[in-house]
């Protein structure tokens, strides 16, 4: 190989390694934030309704804090190389989606859409060939929310909140119907979607228990 060619190639490869290091730094930063969000959100299971909104505010401010990371990544990643590097931060991003969607559900009872989450994390349309939120990562985050909600359904009852499981049940059923519309390959997303039915089953059981206990207190309207 000509010396010039050798040098050219070497330069390209060195640039890539350096790039990888710089992305890794951002990802470490991202990880710290997501760890904090997860640890905070873990408290929803034993926080009484009246103090929950303060807890959610804490998480919201960390989500906003993630915007500096996405910005950092957008500045580092070269044009069109989004898919080359995304695996490096994919796990952190899925966790951030989880946090964002869960917070939104607990605040408003709504599903935060992909665009909404993407905006919250500070992603911009013009970065989409460098940093963006893919459908897969978004869906992974949503599935994690369902996993968490089945746990929340149980713990709400322990905390004396008997309506929560029924609301969760309706929300999760809708989501499950949504997921059923997808033609998935045998990949992680498929495997995780497959596990959703157990969450639904668990939630159903809580609804069943709660409904029949309510029997004593609520007047029954005969079903038609």
């Amino acid at each position, binding site marked *: 190989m000509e010396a010039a060619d050798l040098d050219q190639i070497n330069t390209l490869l060195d640039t890539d390694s350096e790039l990888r290091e710089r992305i890794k730094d951002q990802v470490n930063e991202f990880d710290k934030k997501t760890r904090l969000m997860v640890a905070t959100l873990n408290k929803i299971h034993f926080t009484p309704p009246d103090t929950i909104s303060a807890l959610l505010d804490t998480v919201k401010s960390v989500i906003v804090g993630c915007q500096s990371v996405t910005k950092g990544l957008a500045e580092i990643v070269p044009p069109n190389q989004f898919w080359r590097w995304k695996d490096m931060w994919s796990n952190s991003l899925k966790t951030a989606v989880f946090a964002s969607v869960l917070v939104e559900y607990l605040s408003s009872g709504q599903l935060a859409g992909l665009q909404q989450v993407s905006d919250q994390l500070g992603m911009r349309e013009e970065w989409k060939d460098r940093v963006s939120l893919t459908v897969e990562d978004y869906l992974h985050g949503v599935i994690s929310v369902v996993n968490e909600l089945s746990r929340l359904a149980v713990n709400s009852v322990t905390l004396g909140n008997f309506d929560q499981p029924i*609301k969760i049940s309706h929300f999760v059923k809708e989501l499950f119907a949504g997921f*059923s519309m997808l033609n998935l390959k045998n990949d992680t997303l498929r495997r995780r979607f497959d596990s959703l039915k157990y969450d639904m089953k668990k939630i159903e*059981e809580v609804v069943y228990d709660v409904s029949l206990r309510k*029997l004593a207190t609520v007047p*029954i309207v005969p079903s038609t």
Partner: protein
Amino acid sequence: MASSDQGQIRLAFQGFRDEIDAYNDRRERLIKASRDITNLSKKTIFLLHRLVLEGDASLDDKQLFTRAAKKGYEKLHQVQGIYATLKPELEGDRFWRYERQVSPGLQEYIEALSFAYYLEHGVLIPYNEVQKSISDAEGEPYFHLTVSDYLLGLSDLTGELMRFSISGLSRKGGRRKALEVCAFVRSCKADFERFTEHIRDLRKKQNVTNNSLEKIEDTVYAIAVRSSEYDLPPEMLDDIVATVSSQSNPGGGEDDL
């Protein structure tokens, strides 16, 4: 060696080259077709799950399942169309030559077809029905269906039935359906067991069937445990749950979240 020999050797090898190239080309075509068939079949399976789950308050189970099955068959017509075009590729002794390329897609197709058939009839699709589905209007098979592909395709059905029964739990009548599926998968497992001696891959798939069955059994168990606390017939319990749960959802209860 005479130079005429040289020519002969060359001529012979030219023949070999054509034969080998033809084989490889046909093999490639079959691999590609098999990938398409696999994809269509997988999509059909998703479609069937979706149709069953979406439900429709105006239909009872039998109507709902029959409608889903019909739509499934429709989608599988595309696969049958592909097999029709493959007929000349698999004629005579060719089928067995390309069996390894054909099997994966074929088994996936049988899985999808048997799922639709189960929804419509509640039984395993017979061998002859599968063979008929890949035959032309005169009943001439596009190729001979092997017992092995038939059984291996059916074996995969149990996994789909497991999904069907567990995710259908919250449907009205879902609990009863789970009991039915449990019994059905048990009989599948027993039927298949006899054939594992002859078909090695089936033995591996039986393990998957066993796992699926245990998951269904756990589901049915949970139903039994919970309803045993109350002295009311299961259908009435279902109605109560449905009522209470719908009362709690008067168009969004976000306010007190």
